[in-house]
Structure formats: structure tokens, C-alpha cells
């Protein structure tokens, strides 16, 4: 008993050190922007840069749009596959895993090649070139982000759906007069809250620091900004990574509290 507690503590401490020492190093480094003084100069300078705010806000906007888009795309798909087309499940799972195998660089060149000229069927133009305006390039960017986040989002939605009895809940709702829209937004989505939040967090984490898609589509995102900054400055990137770590943790704590409530509802006295 004693022995196993000791080793348990030992490994936990080791893991914590492994994670925290570099972070502490970065934090400590970020406080030494001015010679012989411990202070927040690196932070004030980083935050004073307009480009920081511009790119940071842009990336957050893109992240939010990507999250909404992927929820709207993936929840109904995963639901329908589980409910009506279980035989398609292996195929769908394979597709959702593709972003792991296909590097982002290939994805973005594929997009650029396909969407930088007209997509036409004979004389009829189906889709004008998307890379021509900022707005339509943003659409491509979001599409790319949705693809990159697909494995994470799909998996957490699929697990969430499996944890509830969607068939019976659907039928119960139908017998009470509910149509598909009501079932999706009043029954399925609310009960997926925990799954959607963790999927959203992962999407957010991927999108906000993403470099490849944003660089090659030429969008003013936070990833390319951070990289640029890293080439010219030393202390500010460290400060910003500490900040982004804190933001991520804040999000995780939030998710922990929100999902704790809903888990108490879902798994209770069954």
C-alpha cells in the first residue's frame, strides 16, 4: 500500500516537473526583458503592438466561426450515421481521420489549386475563384480549419452521441410531435454539451496558433504573427506563449465546471 502510494506520487511529480519546468522557464525568461530588473516589460510591449491585437482578434474570430461551422456540419452527420446508416460508420470514421494523414500544406495547396480559378460546368460558372477577395479566402481558411479539427470534433461528438440512447430519445421526441430541427437543437445538442465543449476547445487550440493554412492563404492570423515575432524578438514571444497557455487553462477550467454540471445530469441514478 505505502509503496504504491510512493511510486504514484513519484510519477505524478515527475510528469508535473516535465510539464512545468519549461513553462516556468519561459515565464521566468519573459520577465527579464530589461536588464537586471524583474518586470512585465515584455508583456506591455507585446500588448502595445497593434498587429498583436489585429491578428489575435482575427484568429479568434476564425476559431469561433470554425467551431460553429464544424458543429453544424458534424453533429447532424454523426447523428444521422449512428441512427440511420450504421453500416457507413467505418467509411465516415476513415474520412474523419484523413487530416491526420494528409499534411496541412498539401491541403492548402489543393485548395489554392482548386479554388483559385473558376469552377465551371461547360459554359456555366458554378463558383467564381475564391482566392480573389479577402472574404472568400476567409471561407477557404475556415473550411481548412474545419478539416483540421475534424478528427477531434467528430470523435468527441461521436462519443457523446454513443453515451446517450439517441434512438429512443429521438423516438420519444417524435412521438411527442417533434420534427428533426427540434430534435437536433432541443434534445441532441443540449445533451452533447460536454462533448461539444471539448471539441470546441480542441478546435480553438488548433486554430489560434495555426501557421500553414494562414500563411499560404495570406491571411493576417495570429500564428504567422507569432512566428514573425519569434524571428525578430526574444522576450515578447515567450510572454505571448505564457499568455496563451493561461488562456487555454482558463478554457479548460471553464469546461470542467460546465461539463461537471451536465455530467451529473446524464449519469445519475441509472
Amino acid at each position, binding site marked *: 500500500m505505502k509503496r504504491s502510494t510512493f511510486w504514484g506520487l513519484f510519477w505524478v511529480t515527475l510528469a508535473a516537473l516535465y510539464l512545468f519546468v519549461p513553462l516556468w522557464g519561459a515565464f521566468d525568461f519573459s520577465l527579464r526583458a530589461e536588464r537586471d530588473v524583474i518586470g512585465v516589460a515584455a508583456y506591455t510591449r507585446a500588448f502595445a503592438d497593434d498587429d498583436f491585437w489585429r491578428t489575435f482578434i482575427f484568429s479568434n474570430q476564425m476559431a469561433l466561426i470554425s467551431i460553429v461551422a464544424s458543429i453544424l456540419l458534424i453533429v447532424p452527420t454523426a447523428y444521422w450515421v449512428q441512427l440511420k446508416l450504421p453500416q457507413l460508420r467505418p467509411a465516415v470514421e476513415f474520412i474523419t481521420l484523413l487530416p491526420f494523414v494528409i499534411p496541412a500544406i498539401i491541403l492548402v495547396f489543393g485548395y489554392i489549386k482548386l479554388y483559385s480559378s473558376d469552377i465551371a460546368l461547360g459554359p456555366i460558372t458554378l463558383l467564381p475563384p475564391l482566392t480573389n477577395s479577402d472574404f472568400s479566402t476567409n471561407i477557404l481558411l475556415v473550411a481548412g480549419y474545419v478539416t483540421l479539427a475534424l478528427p477531434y470534433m467528430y470523435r468527441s461528438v461521436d462519443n457523446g452521441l454513443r453515451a446517450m440512447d439517441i434512438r429512443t430519445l429521438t423516438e420519444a*421526441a417524435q412521438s411527442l410531435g*417533434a420534427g428533426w430541427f427540434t430534435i437536433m437543437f432541443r434534445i441532441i445538442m443540449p445533451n452533447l454539451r460536454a462533448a461539444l465543449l471539448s471539441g470546441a476547445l480542441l478546435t480553438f487550440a488548433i486554430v489560434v496558433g495555426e501557421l500553414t493554412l494562414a500563411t499560404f492563404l495570406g491571411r493576417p492570423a495570429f500564428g504567422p504573427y507569432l512566428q514573425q515575432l519569434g524571428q525578430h524578438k526574444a522576450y515578447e514571444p515567450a510572454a505571448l506563449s505564457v499568455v496563451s497557455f493561461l488562456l487555454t487553462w482558463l478554457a479548460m477550467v471553464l469546461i470542467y465546471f460546465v461539463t461537471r454540471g*451536465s455530467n451529473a445530469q*446524464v449519469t445519475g441514478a441509472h
Partner: protein
Amino acid sequence: MSFLELSNIRKQFSNVATPAVQDFNLKVEKGEFVSFLGPSGCGKTTTLRMIAGFEHPTSGSIVINGKNVIGVPANKRKIGMVFQSYALFPNMTVADNIGFGLRVAKRPKAEIEPRVAEMLKLIHLSDKGKRYPAQLSGGQQQRVALARALAIKPELLLLDEPLSALDAKIRVSLRNEIRAIQRQTGVTAIYVTHDQEEAMSLSDRIVVMSDGRMEQVGTPFEIYNFPQTQFVASFVGTLNQVQARVVDPSAGTLEVEGQPIVAAKAFDARKGETIAVALRPEMMSLDGKTQDDAVNRLVVTVEETTFLGSIVRTRARLRESVISFDTFNNPNLALPQRGEKITVAFPREAILLLKPSNAATENLL
């Protein structure tokens, strides 16, 4: 015209050779409580789901209140449904669950609130409206599910083994409550179960099913006392089944393992044919001394006697078949011993002629 009419329903799943349901014909009157009773896999749920609209019959028609509902989607049928797994919406409170159907129908708030309160009162959970389903016991959850189904004032209430996830004690009290609420609201109900006691105690009529077919439809009294087929006789109750050879159908005479017996009425069968007959255990006695010609007698070999206090249960063998019957304890008589040959007596009315199971008849054709 009956309230619910199922005609020639057949359901064939594409990936299975034998139909899940076939030749299903049933008329249910308004306010009636009908049970589907049968072993696992006999097609009870499939039939119920076709009525609800979750499954579509391969052929046949379903008419509810004069309206053919084939092709009407489940959410337009106004049919309440109660599931074995309760299927309450975990994200909603008890009150919100009950009011869900009314909110979907866009009823005004002034109508929903009193209706929810009324339903909560009906299921004796007025103080639990603000709880979440996971905070209730299984029995309470199922009562909420019942209230939720009834809140929309459905024309028809379908219940698929609503009690089988609960423990025995709650099962009995809740089934009485379901019946009371059904009487009170007057809703027409169809109840699926594989528990014969449940079906007997609840139903106005029972549909006994086996292998996707109806075996017999009747009141619990009829089903129990006058089973028409071998399947019903063996699935319901405690009748003794023996094989008998027909001697003279017009005189009602038969032969069981070489011993003659006489039925109360003439019957329809071929001479020399072997048919199944049931012997009512409660009409059997050990007194083999009567000389009355109206009484049948069979000599059997005792296999086992069990002394149960006021009654004695005897199991005896008649070459191929085993019969079992209870007699009242009599301190003046010794218990029959194992291996002893005894004579059991029973009146002509104790003999019930059984048709082979419906499925079997079909197989012969």
C-alpha cells in the same frame, strides 16, 4: 368501426428471411386496454412500432380513428409512447419533460403550466417538478415518462415493456397505477409484455403472439381458461398437455397412451389422427374409486409429490407425457409414493382440444 384497426399487417425486414410480423389483424375499441403477450422475438415491439410510425409495414393497413395512418410520420400521429428505458430528456427538468409535447405544439404558456401541474399530480410527483430525471428513482422516472406521453392528450398510448427495468415490488404497484391512470384518462392503450401475470392483471384483452403471428385474442379469462392452441396452452398458465389419438370425433372419444377418455363435446378431427389435448389441473383429483361413467380416469405413475401445506402437488408420468396437478391436503390419506401407480380422475369438461400453433399450421401447407 373500431378505434384502431390493424389489417393484414406484415413486416419483412430486408436482411431477414422470415417476416417479423405476418397476418396480423386486430380491432381495438376506444378506451380499451390491450396487451401483446409473447416470448422474446415474437414481434411485439415491431407491431407496436408500426402503430407508432417508427417502422413501416411491408403490407397491410393501420387505421386510427377512421384515418389510415400509413405514410403519416410518427410525429404527426398524436400517439403517446412509453419506453422500457424511460427515455426522459436528461437536459430537461421533470416539468419541462412533461411539457415538451405541448411546447412543440406551440401551446400558450397559460395552458402548458396548469397541464403540467395536473400531470404531476396525476403521477403523485407534484413536489419533484424541478428535479432532473437522473435525480429520480427508476419507478419515478417511468411515471414521468407516462405523464409526458399523456400530457399531449394522445388518442392512443403505446407502452413497450415499461416495467421490465424495475424491481419486482415496484413493478406490481406501478402496473396498478398505470391501469388506474389509463381508466381515469380513458386513453386507449396497447401494452407490450412477456410477463403473463402482468398481461392478465392489466388487460381488457390479450393478444398472444408467437413467431410473428397472433395465436389467440381474448380476455384474460378466455386466454387462461380456454387456450385454443398448443402454444397458448403452454405459454399461459399451467395446463397439462398430452398427445391423444382420435377414436371417434362425433362421440368425443379419444385415447391417451392406450387409455380411453371422453371429451364433453363432439369435435372436428380425423379418426386415428394424433392431436394435442390439455387437461385442467384444477379439475383433477386422486379419487379413482368413483364408478361414474361421466368421469375420465387415467392410470399414471407418480414421479414426485411435493407437500406444500394446504395443498399437495403431484407430478406423474404417462409414458411420454408428464402431468402435474394440485390436490388439497388430507391428513387421513397417505401421500402417493414415487413409482406408485395411481388413478387420476377428471370430468369431461377438463379436456380441452388444442389446435397446433398457428405457425405450425402454415408450415404444413
